[in-house]
């Protein structure tokens, strides 16, 4: 029953959503709404679950004084200070919570995102090495696309933007569509497998 009960919930919720998707008439239009409300409640409790896990893992590190334990103190302090200030003073503009968001959280997120520029350069360097026929084709295509997408490319030769557009509109789009059609069918068939109970691997089974 430990596995059957979650499967039952999956089947019922899945069928409910399926009916909601195809039948707009009352009362089916309210099924989705009802499930959505439940999801919100479950998500709220799930946040507690995540925070609990965070406290347990880092609390253990601090108590055992494992390598890098002072960082765990910083992390837990951050979690508690932000939460307490948010609850106590609110989250409006000008509050301490807003200050933390603007001057700690956002810059740190931006820093991580900006790393992407450097990683793109290093990945492109590896990908464009002409070691095989396919890599050479990729290199040539990238050469035209990159030159076609910058103003200096058009200054050098007017044909660069046209070639770049053709490469992006036809071969690239064709490849992307093939992947998207396959992925969409994969989504539907996986959903059907889960609905009829063939795929139980998300419950830890085969």
């Amino acid at each position: 029953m430990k596995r059957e009960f979650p499967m039952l919930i999956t089947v019922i919720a899945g069928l409910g959503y399926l009916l909601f998707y195809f039948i707009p008439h009352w009362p089916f239009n309210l099924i989705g709404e009802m499930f959505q409300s439940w999801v919100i409640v479950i998500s709220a409790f799930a946040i507690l679950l995540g925070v609990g896990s965070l406290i347990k893992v880092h609390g253990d590190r601090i108590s055992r004084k494992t390598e890098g334990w002072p960082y765990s103190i910083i992390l837990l302090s951050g979690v508690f200070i932000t939460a307490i200030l948010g609850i106590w003073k609110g989250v409006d503009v000008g509050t301490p919570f807003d200050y933390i968001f603007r001057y700690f959280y956002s810059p740190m997120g931006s820093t991580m995102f900006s790393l992407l520029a450097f990683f793109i350069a290093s990945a492109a360097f590896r990908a464009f090495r002409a070691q095989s026929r396919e890599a050479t084709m990729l290199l040539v295509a990238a050469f035209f696309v990159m030159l076609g997408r910058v103003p200096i490319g058009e200054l050098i030769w007017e044909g660069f933007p046209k070639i770049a557009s053709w490469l992006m509109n036809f071969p690239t789009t064709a490849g992307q569509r093939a992947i998207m059609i396959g992925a969409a069918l994969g989504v539907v068939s996986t959903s059907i497998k889960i609905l009829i109970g063939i795929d139980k691997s998300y419950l830890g089974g085969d």
Partner: protein
Amino acid sequence: MYDRIKCTILAVIIGFLLFSISFAYAGSNQISLKSSREIARVTPGNKSVAPVENATIPAMPSLFPGTLPIQPNEPVSSSITPSPVTAENTPSVVETVTSITSSAEQTVTPAISSPERTETTSESTPGTEEPSVSSPLPASTAVATPGTAETKPKEEATGEKKIDTRWFKTERTNMLVAIVLLSGFIVYFIFSAQRGTELFVRRIAGLSALDDAVGRATEMGKAVLYIPGIMDMDDIQTLAGLSILSYVAQKTAEYDTPIMVPTSRSLVMSTAQEVVKESYMRAGRPDAFRPDNIRYLTDDQFGFVAGVDGIMVRDEPAANFYMGCFYAESLILAETGHSTGAIQMAGTAMPSQLPFFVAACDYTLMGEELYAASAYLSRDPQQLGSLKGRICVRLLSYSVYYWDVYLKLQVLHLLFISLILNNGGLSII
């Protein structure tokens, strides 16, 4: 088989119970909506009519990833002039409730998901997509605002609210046909697999190399890092990622290699813990299971990246798996993993992130290969049957698509010929 029949019967019974509850719940809402409308009708233009709170319909979710849910309407000014129903905004089967004269009626939401809303989210800039990871709600709910912005002016202009009373959304017929067709093929191939028909599935390099990657980690005495994407359990890619996790965890249990699963969502963490625990039990090593190795980091996209990068740099896992839904963080993760010298395998159905994984990882599962993984790895006849069914529908889809392209080309060709003939024959060439 017996279990499944038992399970299905139970599902039907509980389903009926659940729907009964929903009918009762819906019935109470319907009554309050109706009464509020009646109040509004008897006092047209009377602003003192109090809005009925329970007549408000909250945001409705979307069924498929990437589509926007239906958003509740915000109260519209009561000075809106009622206007007649027009043919373009009211399908023949959609009942128009009434023109709005009071705020009580303005909370009624049409239950139609417009195609424009779906397109709003389907467009994306490669590498720069950022899911609304800061919200505890599913991504589909968190990005609902643009869709509302599109629909609200039209509703405000006409001053009408509609309730869809159809028993079937005809605009979704093609989806129903696809589902029926796919289900038919899947059931057929499952039965043929059960009858003992040998089903051939081509070798998928990325999945065949899973054992090698875990073996390499074992030889090096290092851990395996597994990331099931950054989205929640409502994303089917996350489920596919957890399916592969089940297999990888079983292998790590057999080889006595630690596995680390940092997650970006608490629900995913909880599910991943169960999956890994079950896998360790299946391998006969429940004592080796460490629940703390499957841990939640943060919901924030780049906060999660920072946490995972830290794990990679500190612990230097020998094998990294990225299986699930990824956005702009894909390349940051994969490149950091590459710099630590780990063997890397990725799988995603996000077309915009695939090039990054192909460039930075040793093996990549592209699109549908991610969904085929559970069937490929388990070799279960039922799963293989469903995989075969999907392949058949895919072939059918491609045939229809290319036939459509061929027909369009033929039409263009005929147009070209007619242009030539109308412009003095071949002299224009």
